[in-house]
């Protein structure tokens, strides 16, 4: 559970871990039902539109301004998003 939480970038309390673990097991048990169906020769469906390789002209168009892009950021500095350091220096 702690490993999955780390993959998902979530911080869980001990109590949450216990609760979610129980619910996760319940849900996984329910979906086991799928094993009753034989899918040996079945192709997977990832999308239902039948559309493929949709592209458009690569044109330069006006986009959201720097000011607007930053308008919802909690912390910014000098026209940039400000984040914690992502590299650890020792």
């Amino acid at each position, binding site marked *: 559970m702690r490993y999955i*939480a780390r993959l998902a970038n979530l911080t869980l309390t001990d109590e949450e871990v216990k609760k979610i673990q129980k619910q996760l097991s319940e849900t996984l048990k329910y979906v086991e039902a799928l094993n009753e*169906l034989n899918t040996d020769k079945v192709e997977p469906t990832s999308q*239902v539109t039948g559309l493929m390789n949709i592209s458009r002209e690569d044109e330069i168009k006006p986009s959201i301004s720097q000011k607007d892009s930053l308008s919802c950021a909690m912390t910014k500095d000098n026209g940039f998003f400000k984040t914690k350091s992502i590299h650890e220096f020792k």
Partner: protein
Amino acid sequence: MNLNKLTITEAINGLKEKKFSSEELVEDCFKRIKDIDEKVRAFVTVCENEALEQVKRIGGNVPNAEKPLLGIPFAVKDNFCTKDIKTTASAKVLENYVPVYDATVVKKLKEAGAIIIGKTNMDAWAHGSSTETSDFFTTRNPWNLNRLPGGSSGGSAAAIAADMTIGAIGSETAGSIRQPAAWCGVVGMKPTYGRVSRYGVIAMASSTDSPGPITKTVEDSALILGILAGKDENDATTSPLLVPNYLREIRVMGEMGGISWIKGIKIGVPKEYFIEGIEEEVKNNTLKAIDVFKKLGAEIVEISLIDPKYSVAVYTILQRSEVSSNLARYDGIRFGNNRTFFGQEAKRRIMLGTYTLSAGYFDKYYLKAQKVRTLICQDFEKAFQKVDIILGPTSPCTALPVGITKGASMFGELQDILVEASSIAGLPGINLCSGFSQDGLPTGIQIIGQNFSEELILKTSFAYEQATEWSKRKPNLE
């Protein structure tokens, strides 16, 4: 004047005939919201100033070919980005998020002249079927305030049922339009996946998310779908197919004594959709609806579809997986709060989705679910070789009591058991009110069609609505 009670088409006609102004129309909606939304709590944000400002700019103009919705009030589910209007998806992570752009659906409504009067409550991130998992508050069912409105588009369905708005927009991933529409006794249309653009909708499960109208009548549904549908270069999954004039088509059918049109239609009724535990009144009202169609001359054919329990399993895996991926973008850096603000339901879904996508489990869960998805699609294809449309109950029960979802890990999935298969296959479907229980709660039927058969669904629905009185009933909230 109680103009808030009007349907979209009635309001358009009234405005055109200058019986009242758009200012009066919008004001009556706000008055209704002020009178009863303390009890119903359908709205997360009410934008009175912005709306009145917009109305002023309309001046004496009335709806026309270019702006068919000029001055018509709309409530929009709070997962559609609205420029300069807070958009939260009823989630604390986004409690202060003010988008700098409009979702395509919102853009199209505005271009047609509609007035956004507010943003409606939902299950946080659309994760649920009750509107009870909103991070802010629970919306109540206008037919009985101790009951839930369903969800996730519960706020929009409740706002329509309680006449707080003229039109409303919802979104469905698997049930989120049809199920609240069923519990609130209104018309909810989930279009074919790719018929209406998802651009600017806060994503839930990207391979099934479908925006659509929630309205008082089938006519309104046809009108709004016609305005929202179409290819959007900002959403590569939108279909290039031409959009029919749905409203004109159903009106032509109506004028030609539409009822006769329905003779020749083959309606399939899947026996598996009368599941164990279905409420007696839901079942009976569905059978009565089938009788209505029989009397209209339709041919009723019993069909068999894959057990809905498999759709629940497929949907649960696909949805959790896509959710974990879609919610990964919320880092609290560019907009919104950080990840500690996620509610319990979101955390639980992210955890399961991360698990089913993780190395070693992908084949067992995600790939298996995608394969069964293929079987479900093929199952429908086979059914549609025999019948034109499929009819069944929308929800196995009427609106459940407030508080029922607490601690349930799959409440929504099991509630939506009868709508998941069609959503997984991308098919369009509509909910229509099929009557009421002894306790006065609405029951709903759904009509499902092949991909891009919205016109057929709307025509069939219109014939049913003309032959019944249910859509005229209103809840008593005084």
